[in-house]
């Protein structure tokens, strides 16, 4: 194909192959590999956060432990997401697909707000199914992402 450098239009098949190459390179820039453990750890941490909230009105020492663990896990999640998302790499100003990013954030927000709004009415157990769904979505997204970036 390098001989095309010297002139001549590609055939439709060559054009298709060139476009596929271009698409694949574009995607490889947009979706940089993340550590294999990232999504599973995130899913477990988020599920643990929801589970801690499912403890109905803890009192005394248990209350202190629950608050301490919640803060520690929330802080760890923030640090983890920050380090993986904003770590310095050789890529600068990579385009973000805001539709996907905002869609994911909206789903996470709905799953986090649902138990906040319903726990007093239906009971603290509502945190558990919401946590399971959110953790499963994070883990599923991770598997899909690893497959797309060739790190499955």
């Amino acid at each position, binding site marked *: *194909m*390098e001989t*095309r*450098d010297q*002139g001549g*239009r*590609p*055939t*439709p*098949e060559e*054009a*298709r192959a*060139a*476009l596929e*190459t*271009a*698409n*694949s*390179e*574009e995607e*490889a*820039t*947009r979706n940089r590999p993340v550590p294999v453990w990232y999504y599973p750890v995130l899913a477990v941490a988020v599920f643990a956060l929801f589970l801690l909230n499912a403890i109905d009105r803890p009192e005394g020492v248990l209350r202190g432990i629950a608050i301490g663990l919640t803060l520690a896990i929330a802080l760890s999640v923030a640090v983890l997401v920050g380090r993986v998302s904003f770590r*310095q*790499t*050789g*890529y*600068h*100003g*990579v*385009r973000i697909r805001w539709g996907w990013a905002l869609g994911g954030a909206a789903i996470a927000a709905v799953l986090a707000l649902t138990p906040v709004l319903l726990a007093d009415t239906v009971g603290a157990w509502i945190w558990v199914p919401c946590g399971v769904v959110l953790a499963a979505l994070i883990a599923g997204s991770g598997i899909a992402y690893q497959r797309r970036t060739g790190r499955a």
Partner: protein
Amino acid sequence: MPEPRFDELIHAPHRLRICAMLSQAEGIEFGEILQRIELSKSALSKHLAQLVDAGYVTESSIVRSGYSRQLLALTPAGRAAYAGHRAALERLMEEG
């Protein structure tokens, strides 16, 4: 939709890959491109020089983690040329 415009310079496989990867970022360091494209340093430099000479790519020096690095970026002309070339390839494909 950009106007289809076949670009011989961009169409060479390695330069097409370079333009495609640069099109999705504000800039990519030389080392990262080298790692992905699997060419020798001199061969990659040659391709980049052609793109720079055409006004499609700019080179600048940045410091990251205490080391000086070469940052490559598509210029507005380079982005337009790449988009036009993609559109030309799509048209060629549809004609087939």
